[in-house]
């Protein structure tokens, strides 16, 4: 029997709204990518029938549009929580404005990406590199909402999509908007592949329970890390 005895404490990292946001977002992205890809390249599995009897493609589009609304408002909730939530969910984590954030980004690249050194990463929430990547995904979320609702505005009478009607003339026409929307979809797929892998990786290496932390909200953090976090001298939003 192998036993580890590392002094750990439990830290509530992800509050309930963050967890709900995460899983709603995950389901939305899954649904949006599947329906979106289908809209872009519909399979032709029906032949020799009449339009009168079917509506499956309309349904796929309907699911895409409804999910898009959920995705959008979920995104807004997360932005709000970036100003209202705990220190790990605050907006300043995601934008590397401080020197120590860039220093941590370099460390993370050396330790976790290239694996050329082996050091403890002190961050309790996201590390600075992860935060930066999330910030980029937020920008992709924003662009995806702009282009998506921009295209949708032409076929909607609703108030919300019309706030985005300017996007189409701004980009020069629906052709360009659709192309950008389609390219960005691949950004989501790419992010998902790496994101899911890295969750496995961190849980495996750091053994802080990062996977289940997105369910329960708590992470196991080494006592010395917590101590350093509480006594940090550098004025830095990150630990």
């Amino acid at each position: 029997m192998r036993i580890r005895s590392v002094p750990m404490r439990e830290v509530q990292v992800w509050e309930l709204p963050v967890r709900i946001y995460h899983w709603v977002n995950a389901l939305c992205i899954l649904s949006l990518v599947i329906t979106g890809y289908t809209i872009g390249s519909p399979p032709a599995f029906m032949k020799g029938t009449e339009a009168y009897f079917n509506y499956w493609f309309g349904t796929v589009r309907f699911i895409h549009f409804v999910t898009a609304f959920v995705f959008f408002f979920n995104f807004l909730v997360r932005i709000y929580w970036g100003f209202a939530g705990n220190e790990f969910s605050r907006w300043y984590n995601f934008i590397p404005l401080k020197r120590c954030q860039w220093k941590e980004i370099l460390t993370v690249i050396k330790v976790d990406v290239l694996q050329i050194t082996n050091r403890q990463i002190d961050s309790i929430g996201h590390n600075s590199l992860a935060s930066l990547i999330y910030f980029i995904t937020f920008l992709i979320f924003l662009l995806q909402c702009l282009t998506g609702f921009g295209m949708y505005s032409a076929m909607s009478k609703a108030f919300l999509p019309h706030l985005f009607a300017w996007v189409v003339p701004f980009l020069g026409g629906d052709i360009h908007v659709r192309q950008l929307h389609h390219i960005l979809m691949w950004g989501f797929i790419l992010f998902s592949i790496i994101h899911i892998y890295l969750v496995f990786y961190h849980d495996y290496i750091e053994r802080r329970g990062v996977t289940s932390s997105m369910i329960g909200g708590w992470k196991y953090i080494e006592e010395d890390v917590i101590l350093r976090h509480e006594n940090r001298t550098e004025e830095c939003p990150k630990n």
Partner: protein
Amino acid sequence: MENKQLSFYEEARGNGISRKEFLKFCTIMAAWLGLETSGVGQIVKALETKPRLPVIWFHFQECTCCSESFIRASHPIVASIVLDKISLDYQETLMAASGVQAEDAYKTVMAKFPGEYIVMVEGSIPTENEAYCCIGGRSALQILKEAVANSKAVVAWGNCASAGCVQAASPNPTGAKPVHKVISGKPVINVQGCPPIADVMAGVVVHLLTFDRIPQLDGLGRPKAFYSRRVHDTCYRRANFDAGLFVEAFDDEGAKRGYCLYKMGCKGPVTYNSCGIIKWNDGISYPIQSGHPCIGCAEEGFWDNGPFYKHLPQIAGFGIETTADKIGVAVGLSALAGVTGHAVLTNIRKHREIANAPEAGSEIENPKEK
């Protein structure tokens, strides 16, 4: 030039068009412009009483297909009245005058109707070197700027004048630009299409004459009455789209049954025009009705967003027929490969750590401690 300016109606009667036909024309126009019933009366009154519009019509870098389209307008009044009269002022292709007389006609309009005449433009304007398009020894840009200065409004006919069309397609050797990018200070109506639908062109002229102001425009300067809906939204094959019934090849069963041309590269879903409603050649047909996908000729950059027969545009710089999907799959697979490599590396490291750990049962230090 005649001293008394005849109205459209007087010109029409003079050309043997009956009052009944004239009223029919006004009614059709009102319907196309989306006016309520009272609008018919307004159009009738305007065409009966107002003198015709003084128009200068320029041809720059273009193929004259806008003019060709215009003279095939479904109602004879458009062709015989609007165009005949326009040509009297200045229309390089159709006017009888040439040389000095033509220049005179052009100057007379500018001198006689300052602030009243409409400048209509077919074609894009070269900016790389203005000499690419010269008329009478002066460049298109010079002529246009001079004419626009005292005009009432500018009508940009077709994709060339509205968005640059084929001349502005990559690599755009002449630096071709649409009208609204080279002039300022005057309203520009972009009547899109390659060419625009003749009846749409007539509708714009009638609107200008009847209401004395430019029609309501969308974000890209196109009259909303004709360009507010996508070809896709007014397509008679739309039911097949919603049902997921697609043509897979031009000679397949689906093509015979008139399924949706979406997968054949139809740009209807990204193109704003009235083809599905007003149609072409006296309302006979339009491309999709003839079994051909829409190529999106009423949209900016439609040449550069080909191929015409593929749903997704190719991405410049990645070779012919490289779509976002092909690149996406490649990048996605590289990510998977990278992640797998990383996992292997991680495991080698981890196993080394475990191998170096003290015996089972004993307490071990945090292996990651500095």
